[in-house]
């Protein structure tokens, strides 16, 4: 029932969206949107009976009625100092307010011939074929319903094109600011990344809420990593206490290329992050690192899929959860090793620290291995702060609270150490410390 109502609401929004399109209505990009809306209507949204969604209740998310953001944000952001959210020196910055590109707050002055960064709405207008060539290239057959939703509303977002051999480029910062006002908004960013052969780029995707109201971020990122190209993708989530966030990142990696995804989660009431990476040729490599620190009643669900399609590829995955109060965490990591993918080396671990009696985490490795000559290791732990270590610190004079946060920070900091941008590490350290200060460890 809720499902039908939610679908109906999204369909109504879609019709309104179409009305505003004018000439673009008959474009191939829009045909794709219509197709996605149609498929979503047929598929519907998942329920707890779906194996892939059994730990995450979407009822509250689907009960909320969202409106699409109008071109003008409800809040005046002109005075906002965007450096406040992340100050990492020279970079290209695209700012979005309630999902809508804000050129006046953005800074593309360090763009070059080798690094093209554009807001997606412009690209859809000017080079629709390019957009089509970069969307749906990964996982077209098995798109999640929420990816279909994003497909249907694809308009805002960014395109990042890194030219052949381009390296030592400034990082690209995509900052999504949500006003979090009275009216729940539907925000559907689409980010397309193409890294040509032998190039290297850092992309930071950051979500921040300025208000406490409900809204729904439904983001999709697609990365195409060519031969010997390297994409470092960071996602930092600092959303509001009533925010919903369901997102998917897809990447396809060619020969000797690498893609790393670093997730840091602090915000949102409900988060579901899907990662789906395909190692598509020999010697490709990927890293999936994640740190999530839900507090209060936050729910953070991570589902990752790594698809070893070809031989001699490596994947490393490390997810850590620190859960406070009544928070809930989910980790599901699937490793697929295709028959052809001999000499695969896949490592996965998920370690969780429960910092309260009432916090809960579910962790589930899933291995589908069709090749015989492979190395696959996985391990999961759920624990509490070590009593011996606590006593050791306190016996040296550290107050109990400080000892707690020293140990919790030590657990979390491993993920920060894998971030190669020093100023970003600083930002993350601060965010972790803030979370440790704000939430009680029992």
């Amino acid at each position, binding site marked *: 029932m809720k499902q039908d109502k939610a679908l109906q609401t999204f369909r109504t929004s879609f019709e309104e969206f179409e009305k505003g399109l004018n000439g673009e209505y008959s474009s191939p990009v829009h045909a794709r949107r219509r197709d996605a809306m149609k498929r979503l209507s047929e598929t519907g949204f998942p329920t707890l009976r779906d194996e892939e969604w059994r730990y995450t209740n979407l009822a509250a998310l689907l009960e909320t009625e969202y409106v699409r953001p109008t071109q003008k944000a409800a809040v005046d952001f002109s005075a906002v100092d965007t450096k406040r959210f992340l100050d990492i020196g020279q970079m290209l910055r695209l700012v979005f307010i309630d999902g809508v590109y804000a050129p006046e707050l953005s800074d593309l002055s360090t763009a070059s011939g080798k690094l093209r960064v554009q807001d997606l709405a412009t690209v859809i207008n000017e080079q629709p074929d390019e957009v089509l060539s970069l969307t749906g290239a990964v996982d077209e057959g098995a798109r999640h319903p929420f990816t279909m939703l994003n497909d249907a509303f694809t308009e805002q977002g960014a395109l990042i094109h890194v030219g052949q051999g381009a390296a030592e480029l400034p990082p690209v910062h995509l900052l999504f600011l949500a006003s979090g006002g009275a009216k729940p908004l539907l925000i559907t960013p689409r980010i397309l990344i193409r890294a040509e052969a032998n190039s290297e780029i850092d992309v930071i995707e950051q979500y921040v809420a300025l208000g406490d109201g409900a809204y729904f971020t439904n983001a999709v990122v697609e990365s195409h990593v060519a031969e010997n190209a390297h994409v470092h993708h960071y996602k930092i989530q600092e959303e509001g206490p009533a925010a919903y966030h369901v997102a998917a990142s897809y990447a396809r990696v060619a020969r000797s290329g690498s893609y790393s995804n670093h997730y840091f989660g602090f915000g949102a009431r409900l988060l579901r992050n899907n990662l789906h990476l395909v190692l598509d040729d020999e010697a490709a490599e990927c890293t999936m690192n994640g740190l999530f620190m839900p507090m209060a009643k936050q729910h953070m669900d991570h589902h990752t899929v790594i698809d070893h399609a070809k031989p001699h590829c490596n994947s490393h995955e490390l997810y850590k959860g620190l859960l406070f109060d009544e928070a809930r965490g989910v980790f599901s990591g699937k490793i697929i090793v295709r028959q052809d993918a001999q000499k695969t080396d896949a490592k996965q671990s998920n370690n969780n620290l429960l910092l309260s009696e009432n916090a809960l985490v579910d962790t589930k490795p899933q291995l589908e291995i069709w090749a015989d000559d492979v190395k696959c290791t996985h391990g999961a732990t759920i624990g509490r702060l070590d009593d011996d270590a606590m006593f050791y610190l306190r016996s040296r*004079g550290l107050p109990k609270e400080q000892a707690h946060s020293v140990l919790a920070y030590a657990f979390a900091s491993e993920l920060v150490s894998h971030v190669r941008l020093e100023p970003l590490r600083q930002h993350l350290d601060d965010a972790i410390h803030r979370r440790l200060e704000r939430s009680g460890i029992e």
Partner: protein
Amino acid sequence: MLEIRNLHAEVEGKEILKGVNLKVEAGEIHAIMGPNGSGKSTLAGVLAGRELYEITEGEVIYKGRNLLDLSPEERACEGMFLAFQYPVEIPGVSNTYFLKAALNAIRKYHGLEELDAVDFLALVKEKMQLVEMKPELLNRPVNEGFSGGEKKRNEILQMAVLNPTLSVLDETDSGLDIDALRIVANGVNKLHSPENATIVVTHYQRLLNYIVPDRVHVLVDGRIVKSGDKDLAFHLEEQGYDWARDLHEPVENES
């Protein structure tokens, strides 16, 4: 400085300390010897405030205050220091960070300004010479991957930096070769002064060749069964603990 009166302690419902009496004055070094499992580490843990142990009877007066009312961190700030028999490894926390946090917590407790990085490093460098510790151990996570001897030196380094009033060294000699033993003992002796006191807990007499105690106590089955001067340690070494076990009546400690 310290007076333990009729102390009884249990762990998981099992009585380990069965009426310990001990008095330690400033400027003194006491040795507590006893066979494995007699309760030496339990006594040390009770003094440092380990919550694992339940005190069922008795009291401990330290610098005129009831020690058992204080949290482990308050005890540390009041000058109590336990060198652990098994120092704990803390992955992800660097040794320097840990030492600095400890020192500054204690300084803060006494209303002193926190030491900045430069002054702190100078202090640590000076103290490290005392225990001849490799400088690279400073940047490593606390005790992680340290050898047995390195862990024990690290305990004494912490002691040197934190400058406690009452130090309890729990089997600091175990696992040390003779050179390391000499270095550690030398460090402890240099830190000793008329204002502070040291309790050396050990299984063997060996350490007492280097750290000469004013009093030696024999702990058997949760009680101090005999106390004496440093010669008692030699006697124990010759006779073995069976001799001590046969001393049925616990003696009053009259130091």
